[in-house]
């Protein structure tokens, strides 16, 4: 028996200024079985929706107004008013160059998917954020998922296990 994802239990917020892109992502998610999928065309509406609560996954474009998708991510991870600082975030953006990937990662993105994307690529990111949750790291200057993906053998004390003072 293999693992399955029941998308009907996952509530998505999609943020993209492009109406067609919002609709396409929503259609894909609903085809997968999602029943609770909300869209927002700018970052302020997204923040209002997030504040109202009821979302499990945020999918956002970087290129948003008035705040960028990166600022939206930063707000979610660090702001006192954030509804869930550990919410999985997929940055789905046409800002596809490596510097954007690195910057997103350093702000605590869970997954990055460059546009133009493929259906397969989208599905893999969804599986990753839902079925392969990562621990979070809180350190000065960073709050987000553990950025180390590779599980390499390490000899010596695991200092990551230290508790805060």
């Amino acid at each position, binding site marked *: 028996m293999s*693992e399955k994802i029941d998308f009907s239990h*996952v509530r998505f917020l999609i943020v993209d200024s492009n109406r067609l892109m919002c609709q*396409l992502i929503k259609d894909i998610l609903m085809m997968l*079985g999602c029943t609770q999928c909300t869209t927002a065309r700018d970052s302020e509406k997204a923040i209002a929706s997030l504040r109202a609560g009821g979302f499990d996954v945020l999918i956002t474009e970087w290129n948003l107004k008035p705040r960028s998708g990166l600022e939206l991510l930063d707000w979610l991870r660090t702001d006192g008013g954030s509804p869930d600082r550990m919410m999985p975030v997929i940055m789905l953006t046409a800002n596809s160059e490596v510097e954007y990937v690195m910057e997103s990662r350093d702000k605590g993105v869970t997954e990055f998917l460059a*546009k*133009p994307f493929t259906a397969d690529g989208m599905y893999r990111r969804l599986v990753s954020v839902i079925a392969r949750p990562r621990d979070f790291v809180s350190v000065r200057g960073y709050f987000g998922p553990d950025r180390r993906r590779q599980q390499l053998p390490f000899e010596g004390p695991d200092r990551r296990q230290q508790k*805060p003072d």
Partner: protein
Amino acid sequence: MRSKAQIIPNRGELKRKAVNYKTGMDIKLDEATLKKMEQLVENSSAQFLDETVESLKGLREALGRAATEPAARREVLEHIREEAFQIKGMGGVFGYPLLTEFAKSLHDFLKELEDLDELQQEIVSIHVDTLYVVVSHRIKGSGGALEAQLRASLKAAVDKAKPGTKTAP
């Protein structure tokens, strides 16, 4: 002194809610579901092309404005940059990688600009014309003779505006 990192174990609530062995989609994407997803994208392809045509019309109008109203150039630049970004992100999704490539070329060209002088307007115009050709011919591939010709003419246009490039007398 280095600050200590605190590891916060993931609560796994979402996984508990959604992952099971009975209902839903297989974690490994099966062919049938992939086909359905691709069909959804294909269904929106015509709409994408219609919207791209409208976008390109808007860019031509904006260029006309930039030519006659120097004060509007910054606003026009912002508008073109935004449209180029959208086409760059969408083209390949809907099976038009050449639209993505050429829109990226336009977006990259505009990235550092703060104004649109006449030469720059001309280069934007060549981009818009080239994007039109892709849309009107419904060019889905990226490796044919026409594609190579379009790519070469666009590159020549962009090279014209590079600092240090002298135009022929």
